[in-house]
């Protein structure tokens, strides 16, 4: 593939969403702050976005939050690729890492707000709110 831009290997979020990521991971109590890693937050955000079919382009400052290598190769990577294939309708997207990243970043950028609302804005402790989201 003659891709002019070099293949990225970092995943970015919109700087405006950074606070939500922190809110969901920083703190002591697991009942109030359910997530251990930002990677899990990100995966939830992508899946929520994909589930609802909602994408949002990153318009603010981009923050590189972690590297592609931090995704679980057995679960996360195939999942993200599947989402990219379903969205683009094009199997050859498998060979274009940058395009995959763009799609999942935009899903995550929409999903993160939904995630925050469902976890914190609902009645009940955050962990149980999260549990209730598993179908």
């Amino acid at each position, binding site marked *: 593939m003659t891709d002019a831009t070099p293949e990225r290997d970092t995943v970015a979020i919109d700087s405006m969403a950074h606070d939500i990521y922190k809110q969901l991971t920083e703190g002591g109590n*697991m*009942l109030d702050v*359910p*997530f*251990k890693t930002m990677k*899990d937050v990100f*995966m*939830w955000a*992508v*899946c*929520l976005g*994909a*589930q609802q079919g909602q994408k949002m382009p990153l318009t603010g400052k981009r923050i590189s939050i972690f590297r592609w290598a931090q995704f679980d190769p*057995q*679960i996360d990577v*195939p*999942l993200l*690729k*599947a*989402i990219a*294939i*379903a969205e683009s*309708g094009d*199997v*050859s997207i*498998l*060979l274009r890492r940058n395009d995959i990243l763009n799609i999942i970043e935009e899903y995550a950028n929409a999903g993160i707000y939904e995630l925050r609302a469902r976890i914190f804005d609902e009645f009940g402790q955050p*962990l149980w709110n*999260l*549990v209730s*989201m*598993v*179908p």
Partner: protein
Amino acid sequence: MKLERITLENFRQYFGRQRLDFAKDKQHRVTVIHGVNGAGKTSLFLAINWCLYGEGVSNVGELISKEAIKLASSGENVEMSVELSFTHDGERYLVKRSRHGTKMFDGSIQVNSADEFIVMRILWDGQAQTIKNPIGTINAILPSNIRSYFLFDGEKIDGFAKPEAAKEVKEAIYLVFKLETLDRARGHLETAASDYRKELKTATSGELRGLLDEDEKAREELKRKEDRKAEIGIELDVARRKVADIEQRLREIQNVRFLQQQRDRIEQDLKVRRAELEDVQNQIRDITTTSYFTLVQPVIGRALHLLDEKRERGEIPSNIRRQFVEDLIAEMRCICGRPFTDGSPEHLRLLRIIDNTLPGALEDEVLDISATLRTFNGRAHRQRDDLTIHMKRRAELVDLIKDLDAEADDIGRRLKDSPLEEVSRLELQRQSFLADIDRYNTDTGSLARDIDSLKERISQLEKRIGQARKNEKKEKLLGIKFDLAQRAADAIKDMYQTYADDMRLRIEAKTKEIFKLLIWKDSHFQDVRLSPDFDLEVIDRYGRPARPELSAGERQVLSLSFITAMSRISEEEAPLVMDTPFGRLSSQPRNNITKFLPDLADQLVLLVTDEELRDQARANLEPRIGREYRLQFDSKTSCTRIEEVR
């Protein structure tokens, strides 16, 4: 600078190569060059200026000798140059400026590009060494901006004595005594000081102190909270011990021993259950946070559909990998394991498979991912089941714990209601201590949070303090820079004034000395003054300014006195070259001046007409003349020839 020789080649009316040597020893230091008007005195004067500075020659027409041009044939090169040799500070120099032209068909001359200018140092063994910075060198010897005070045009001789000449007098002093350097230095330092002052105004100050105060307060609060937390810790221990003591006591009392022991067992059980609950919740958290893939089963389904489609279209073999096939071919073995030969049907079939497949990378990806995605469904089920089991267990534990708590409460009530006064009292105390313990735990928790946030705030403050410290240092430095620049500028201003005054007074004294020497109406004039406004004034014996009444000659003498005074005081070693200096003087002043003039300069070159230098004037100069020339003008060729007289 002491002139040695000038060589002219085709310079104006000096056709061909002609040269002239200057008198330069102590006694015989005067060179006299005679010529009628138009003979070439001014051209010679111009030649010296042009050679050294390339200046003074605008509006004088063509410099290249007309005769040389005339005699040249079409297309022939004509060369013009002026060469000057001189000594300065013990070194010998040779300066040459030249110009080339080509004669055109129409008889005119086409000058080639720029003039060439070389300055060479002549070493002791006669070798010539070219100097890299010719202009700078000449300017270091006799700066271009003061040359007109030494290479002196006689027409301007009374210039400094004119009433309106104050400005020129001031400028002459300014230039000759290098006051310009001081002036520029002061100007630049003032500008620097002003810039620093502007910068200082915009700098922030007081920020550092504010931050340090905030930091101090935050640390004080931190300490207070940490102390309080420690205090509560102690109180907590005390309360716990008290509770333990009470429970021990209860165990000792016959009637209620069994109740307390029961409670002990319940507490133990509760501990275990609570730990288990914590554990289960941890697992629930871990399962849940990794259950995101369960949300997107439909999406996975769609992706699989697309992948299968791709495969079904025959673009990708369903279960054979390219790499596998390549490996088989390399080993010359069939899928079933049997070896085959080159060109055999099995071989060809394998090759065909390779030809029909897509590039390896995509194919492998598709196969990999399809296989993995198919497992997600099962995974999702298992995840959900897992979660359900754990949630159920959690619910059970919560109920269990609730029941145990209820049992413990019940025991407590029975103890409280005990008819034994001691038991009842002990239990009440116990419960009160437990309430305290709860409160202490809550307080400790909130203090811990406050402490964390204070520590974070202190860390931020410290970053800002570090930055403010840097800024303050910058500010301090700026303040010092301003102070230094301003003080230096002021110092120069003061020095300049004193120094300039000094110069003025010295020049005044010297001018007076020379004036008295040269003027013939000696007793009529009492004083020469150079005012702070740079007015050159002569005071008569009645104490009045005499300038309005000065004759042309007297003015010229005053002017000349000023110039020679400057030349003496400035310590510039320079020749006085004067072009028709006596032209407008009557005989008396002329005679007087010629008597003393040779001693007023290290070297004197006079370009004169015959009328200027006659009789007594001539006789006065005679003992000091070292070289004498006559400029012979040929009206037929319009050329001048330099003739040596002495």
